[in-house]
């Protein structure tokens, strides 16, 4: 997908000022997620679980090549085709060949953020293939022609009224249809698509090396159908999704579901190990299984000792839900497929810092994300690494650098500091509110009320 992160502030402002209902919808949805998450972990030793999950993921990532080859070998043994894609265009090329070789005209898609990351839908459409999203949230944003605004809840920025209106326009449901009626209308359309599509495309929550198993978590049954009914199934799996052992999987499924929505596990978990009719005991399923292992910047990120830990992410969205910055705008402000705190550390790693500024600065560094991450990614520290690099590479604003440099020069000279404080106190508010940076403060806030004297003056006079 195209990256528009450079416009973060303008996008955020537009969302806040022009579509205040988005802020309300996102805040309500994320708060519900947060409450459910808290309940889900209430009786568990969350700390022990996250330490364990961190260890397993870090181990997998530091032995990634071995585990990926193990997973590939197991999948190939069962008759799956395994493809390695270094970039988005590699994914496109691989999919184009599968589509052409099999005369595919219609694809049903299960929810996959990786497919958004590599811009798969527009590419397939450009090949003349009809693509239908089958996750209800994804289907809704497909109708609106929008990217997802949240990793787990792609359409949480949309209100019920928005959805009623677009369903009325596109599917002919009544203007005041109940959510059940809307879901039924989508269901009817999607059921037919499952039966007529030649190919299903999914992502993969986890890839178990030991057994060559792709695990998928969902609630609607659409993943089960997308991956088993059409003749061909293509799974796009990020190379960082690997888990070493089968025994690791059950805990990761639980930790991910609990962190995401507070569910014990998803309503459905699909485990895919090979095509149907394969020797190793997969009686049902598609005739062909293609697994595309996607790098797209991940190995570069992995090789970066300061930021590699971002790759532990299991895409639960807990950091988005808890983030007070994310809650004001939802994900579209970030201009990248992954939004919120995790997006702000993944984007510069996967795409490039210059292309994704100012995302590492789109955070108050409040630290709430760090406390909820089920794999203990030190998100605030990683944000800081990207900020540091932005300064080192001269990518931050000249005004900001000058102000900070001046400030450092003043505060390391105490006599000058005292003088500067006095001078600052003499500048009238009418002037202050037009100074660089303070101008931005004054747009929605009054300037601080300075006390008449500084503390050091009070101290010199004597504090009674």
């Amino acid at each position, binding site marked *: 997908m195209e990256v528009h992160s450079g416009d*973060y*502030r303008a996008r*955020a402002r537009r969302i*806040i*000022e022009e579509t205040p209902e988005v802020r309300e919808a996102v*805040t309500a949805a994320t708060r519900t997620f947060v409450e459910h998450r808290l309940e889900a972990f209430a009786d568990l030793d969350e700390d022990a679980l996250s330490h364990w999950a961190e260890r397993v993921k870090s181990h997998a990532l530091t032995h990634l090549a071995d585990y990926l080859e193990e997973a590939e070998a197991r999948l190939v043994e069962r008759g799956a085709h395994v493809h390695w894609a270094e970039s988005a265009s590699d994914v496109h090329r691989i999919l184009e060949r599968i589509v052409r070789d099999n005369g595919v005209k219609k694809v049903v898609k299960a929810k996959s953020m990786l497919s958004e990351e590599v811009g798969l839908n527009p590419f397939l459409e450009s090949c003349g293939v009809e693509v239908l999203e089958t996750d209800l949230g994804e289907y809704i944003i497909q109708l609106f022609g929008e990217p997802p605004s949240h990793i787990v809840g792609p359409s949480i920025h949309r209100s019920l009224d928005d959805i009623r209106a677009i369903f009325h326009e596109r599917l002919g449901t009544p203007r005041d249809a109940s959510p059940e009626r809307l879901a039924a209308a989508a269901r009817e359309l999607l059921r037919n698509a499952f039966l007529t599509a030649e190919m299903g495309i999914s992502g993969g929550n986890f890839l178990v090396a030991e057994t060559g198993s792709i695990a998928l978590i969902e609630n609607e049954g659409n993943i089960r159908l997308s991956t088993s009914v059409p003749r061909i199934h293509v799974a796009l799996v990020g190379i960082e999704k690997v888990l070493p052992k089968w025994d690791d999987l059950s805990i990761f499924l639980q930790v991910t579901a609990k962190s995401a929505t507070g569910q014990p596990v998803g309503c459905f978990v699909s485990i895919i190990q090979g095509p149907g009719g394969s020797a190793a005991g997969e009686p049902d399923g598609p005739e062909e299984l293609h697994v595309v292992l996607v790098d797209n910047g991940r190995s570069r990120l992995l090789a970066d000792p300061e930021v590699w830990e971002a790759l532990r992410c299991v895409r639960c969205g807990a950091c988005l839900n808890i983030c*007070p*910055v994310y*809650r*004001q705008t939802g994900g579209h402000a970030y201009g990248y497929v992954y939004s919120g705190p995790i997006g702000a550390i993944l984007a510069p790693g996967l795409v490039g810092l210059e292309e994704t500024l*100012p995302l590492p*600065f*789109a*955070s*108050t*560094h*409040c*630290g*709430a994300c*760090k406390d909820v991450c089920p794999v203990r990614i030190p998100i605030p520290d990683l944000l*800081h690494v*990207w*900020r*540091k*690099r*932005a*300064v080192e590479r001269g990518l*931050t604003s000249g005004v*900001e650098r000058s102000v*900070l*440099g001046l*400030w*450092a020069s*003043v*505060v*390391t000279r*105490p006599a000058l*500091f005292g003088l500067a*404080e006095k001078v600052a*106190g003499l500048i009238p508010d009418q002037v202050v509110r037009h100074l660089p940076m*303070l101008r*931005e*403060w004054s*747009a*929605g*806030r*009054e*300037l*601080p*009320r*300075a*006390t008449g004297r*500084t*503390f*050091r*003056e*009070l*101290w010199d006079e004597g*504090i*009674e």
Partner: protein
Amino acid sequence: MRVSLFVTCLGDRFFANAAADAVRLLRSLDVEVDFPKDQTCCGQPAWNAGDVPEALRMATHTAEVFADADYVVLPSGSCTAMLRCTYPRLLEAPAVAERSYELAEFIVDVLEVTELGRGLEGRRLAYHHGCHALRELGLETQPVRLLESAGAGVVPWEMDQECCGFGGLFSVKNPEVSVAMADRKLDTLPDVETVVSADGGCLLQLDGRARHRGLPIRFKSLASVLWEARRGGA
């Protein structure tokens, strides 16, 4: 016992009276307070901006100023977090890191005083937890305990632990989001006379927004309110 007060740059300019109240409070607890004159800013603005060399200059200066202090007490949670949690990443084994305490933290954890007086009898307050105080220092119960033991009702506030939107430079780099965050705090505030916080930046943010909207809410530094607790009932 002797402590060095680090008033912080915001405290010096914008919360001078609150800092003076911190001095009065500490003295009333038989603590001798000194004020090293060469102190300025801890360097947090530069650190948060990613400007490590400038942060290092300021941290080096501050660590030198307080090198001989038995305790450094700050009327600011986030600056305390800068000294305690970030200085060890900038400087080699800075002594100042483990000797620094936020004011309420110092009173409860070091002095082991949990009742200052009864000077807040009948007051209805809300307490805003600064993010770095809460999540880096683990300062959660101490301020509330001191307020409540002085007779104040600290009214539950569903958003009391959510960020106010200040975030230092964030407030001027992303003013629209920053203001929306302040609004979320203000719009969920229960019916109280005063909002108390240990962090100057948060107070400037919330007070600045509340005054802009014409909301009749008072914002006060924890140091001043704790001094009221002491003075009123001592």
